[in-house]
């Protein structure tokens, strides 16, 4: 892009910076010029001013005055934008909700703006994952450096996914962040600093292309997570420090940072499980704590969570993220207290790994409670059942659902949903009755496949020991609902609102608490999906879930025929997830189911539910043997949950749908190595 400045005003400075930036930075020669910015503000005056300012900074600007418009723009063209700037107060949607959604679905850096400079609002921005907060009226100087957020995010993603012990990187990242992350009114000096820092880091990291986001990520497989949990248990949750855990685990290639971030999530997960009964408020507070740590690593969270979910590499990262977020949100905020996005993510991710681990063994969580959410939803399924489920889940196809039969509570059902597999319909099919119960917001029983898939995958629905078929009666239904609500448009099958995913995930983690789960999910920052969850919770009585879950699980398994990889389906989750594919169950709640499953799993599926679920599952599943062990379905590509950076629900859904249809090489598609999500044929 040529730097010819048409306007003379301030051109000198602009040129200089641009030129300097150009030479320094990674993405392209002209970077940050050409940065694609989406600005959202309902005030036309501000919008016009911002557009002009951004143009002056040589960015490519798209403006819109409604959040919904922004979302559809973002969804339509994935990777069409580099960064989003949004106002906090908007008529059609709360800015923070938009922020969360974007973070979950597209994982783009989002800058919040407001005339409000009160501490609480700014804090809200932080907790919801905004990468910066600008006070209006915004000055052009503040906009000149927004590119740093794009670069930083990419860097962080690398870092998170790095497997080799690169302590320096870790150190560097925070350093870079600190230095570069000054207030929005950063002056030009700052970008130089950050640039310099980045240069150093780049050299050290030997990463040429900061813009490439495809990097290997640590996949917290079931085995790995089990090792982790074992180590933590051995040390005692209070004394478990990353360094010691790392030593105990003795896994080559695993870094302290990997363990640290995983531990953080795990802690949140535990806390959530324990605090399920408590008020969401409390949880929120507690979350804030750990959140901070994790804050800023949204990408990592997503990555990790997704990983778990994407065992088969099927789950679109976003769905996972959403699930997680949803799950997290829900669990904490029954009252609708928004769970900081971070929490959600953490929880979610936390859960996922857990889920994965449910390999048919009792997961021994330090917290004996249904912490298993991750470990799956505390499922009371017997390992055997899990195993059965597991096997049947194979039929689910893409879903990597691993029935996690372990867990003190029961079995963890790791549902690794193969993305392609769960067909949204499945969900709907499974839990007939349940679906209706789903929060009204859901409206449709069929949860979008994406969601369900996400749910399944993510939720490490603890395998409840229920009969043969896991029936993870998860309050997760709420999760499902979550997505559903979320997207009002989300057809159960397809609308897998990312936002909701988080909810879902959280639900699953919750495992033991059904109620909590719902509430937790609700918490998420205003995600519509959260509402769904809440509703789910409200509606849900376990019984509801029973109905639904059983169905869900079945479907999940059914659909998951091509289940690839492990089907660690938390009883409820699996059901759901698989459901989408199994139309036979006639449960329409595909996504809902899945969500539900997930949730229920997390929410402490009731035994009955599980039973039901299990039963349902059995018939559905080709072979009722549910193997607890999460075996990856061979096809399901590795468990690496490499989620492509941005892939939208549509991708996920399609992937899932594809799987369900029994795409042959579906598994292959889900190979995570290449962040298959992107490759998943839609």
């Amino acid at each position, binding site marked *: 892009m040529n730097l010819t400045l*048409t*306007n*003379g*005003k*301030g051109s000198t400075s602009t040129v200089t910076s641009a030129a300097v930036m150009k030479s320094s930075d990674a993405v392209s020669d002209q970077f940050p010029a050409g940065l694609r910015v989406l600005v959202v503000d*309902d*005030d*036309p*005056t*501000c919008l*016009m*001013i911002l557009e*002009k*300012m951004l143009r*002056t900074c040589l960015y490519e600007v798209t403006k819109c005055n409604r959040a919904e418009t922004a979302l559809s723009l973002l969804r339509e063209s994935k990777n069409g934008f580099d960064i989003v700037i949004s*106002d906090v*107060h908007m008529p059609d949607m709360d800015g923070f909700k938009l922020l969360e959604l974007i973070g979950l679905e597209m994982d783009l850096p989002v800058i919040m703006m*407001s*005339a*409000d400079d009160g501490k609480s609002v700014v804090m809200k921005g932080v907790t919801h994952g905004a990468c910066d907060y600008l006070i*209006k*009226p915004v*000055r*052009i100087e503040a906009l000149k450096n927004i590119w740093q957020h794009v670069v930083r995010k990419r860097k962080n993603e690398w870092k998170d996914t790095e497997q080799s012990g690169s302590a320096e990187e870790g150190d560097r990242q925070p350093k870079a962040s600190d230095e570069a992350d000054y207030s929005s009114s950063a002056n030009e000096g700052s970008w130089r600093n950050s640039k310099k820092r980045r240069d150093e880091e780049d050299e050290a990291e030997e990463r040429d292309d900061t813009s490439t986001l495809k990097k290997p990520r640590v996949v917290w497989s079931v085995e790995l997570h089990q090792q982790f949990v074992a180590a933590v248990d051995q040390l005692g949750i209070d004394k478990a420090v990353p360094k010691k855990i790392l030593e105990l685990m003795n896994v080559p290639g695993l870094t302290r940072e990997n363990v640290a971030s995983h531990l953080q999530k795990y802690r949140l997960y535990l806390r959530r499980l324990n605090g399920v009964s408590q008020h969401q408020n409390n949880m929120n507070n507690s979350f804030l704590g750990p959140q901070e740590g994790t804050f800023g690593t949204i990408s990592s969270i997503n990555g990790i969570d997704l990983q778990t979910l994407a065992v088969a590499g099927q789950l679109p990262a976003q769905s996972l993220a959403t699930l997680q977020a949803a799950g997290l949100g829900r669990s904490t905020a029954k009252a609708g207290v928004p769970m900081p996005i971070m929490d959600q993510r953490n929880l979610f991710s936390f859960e996922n790994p857990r889920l994965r681990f449910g390999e048919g063994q009792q997961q021994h969580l330090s917290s004996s409670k249904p912490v298993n959410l991750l470990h799956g939803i505390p499922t009371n399924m017997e390992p055997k059942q899990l195993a059965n489920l597991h096997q049947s889940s194979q039929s689910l196809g893409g879903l990597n659902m691993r029935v996690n039969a372990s867990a003190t509570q029961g079995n963890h059902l790791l549902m690794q949903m193969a993305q392609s597999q769960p067909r949204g319909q499945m969900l709907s099919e499974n839990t007939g009755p349940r679906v209706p119960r789903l929060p009204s917001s859901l409206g449709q029983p069929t949860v979008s496949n994406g969601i369900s898939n996400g749910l399944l995958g993510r939720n490490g629905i603890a395998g409840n020991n229920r009969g043969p078929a896991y029936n993870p009666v998860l309050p997760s239904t709420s999760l499902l609902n979550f997505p559903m609500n979320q997207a009002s448009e989300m057809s159960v099958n397809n609308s897998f609102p990312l936002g909701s995913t988080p909810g879902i995930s959280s639900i699953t983690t919750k495992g033991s608490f059904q109620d909590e789960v719902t509430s937790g999910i609700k918490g998420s920052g205003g995600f519509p999906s959260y509402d769904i969850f809440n509703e789910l919770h409200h509606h849900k009585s376990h019984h509801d879930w029973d109905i639904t879950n059983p169905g869900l699980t079945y479907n999940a398994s059914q659909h998951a025929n091509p289940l690839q990889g492990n089907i660690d389906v938390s009883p409820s989750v699996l059901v759901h997830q698989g459901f989408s594919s199994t139309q036979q169950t006639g449960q329409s709640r595909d996504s809902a189911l899945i969500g539900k499953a997930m949730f229920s799993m997390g929410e402490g599926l009731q035994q009955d539910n599980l039973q039901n679920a299990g039963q349902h599952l059995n018939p559905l599943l080709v072979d009722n043997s549910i193997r607890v062990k999460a075996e990856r379905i061979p096809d399901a590509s590795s468990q690496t949950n490499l989620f492509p950076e941005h892939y939208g629900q549509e991708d996920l859904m399609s992937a899932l749908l594809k799987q369900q249809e029994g795409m042959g090489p579906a598994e292959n598609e889900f190979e995570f190595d290449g962040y298959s999500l992107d490759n998943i044929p839609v």
Partner: protein
Amino acid sequence: MDTNHSRRQLAAMKQSLFDQGLLDEQFIQLEELQDDANPNFVEEIVTLHYRDSSRLISSIEQALKERNLDFNKLDTLMHQFKGSSSSIGAKKVKAECNLFREYCRAGNAEGCMRSFQQLKKEHAALRKKLEAYFQVSRV
């Protein structure tokens, strides 16, 4: 020369607006954005602002007519108004917005009404002055 004269006049007007505390730094920012591609940028923005803000003012007026004042709604409306006003650098108007919001938070209906009247006055006064200013700038 006429151009010089009007330029000087313009500068004087602007200075006066600043001296009276009616405009702040943000106005300068807007002027700096003006360029050959957008030679009337500032005027366009100001026009846009007044069009939009009159809508907000009506809404606030309506809300103030209610028997039981909904302070939350008033606060939200005023927040929007404040954001818009501050983006053109309307200093006094912005200050009045803050005052209004304080009254809202205190639940002081009387204070809100008074403050709003004052706000409207400031808003209108600035509008006139800016119109005159732009008129001169076009000369």
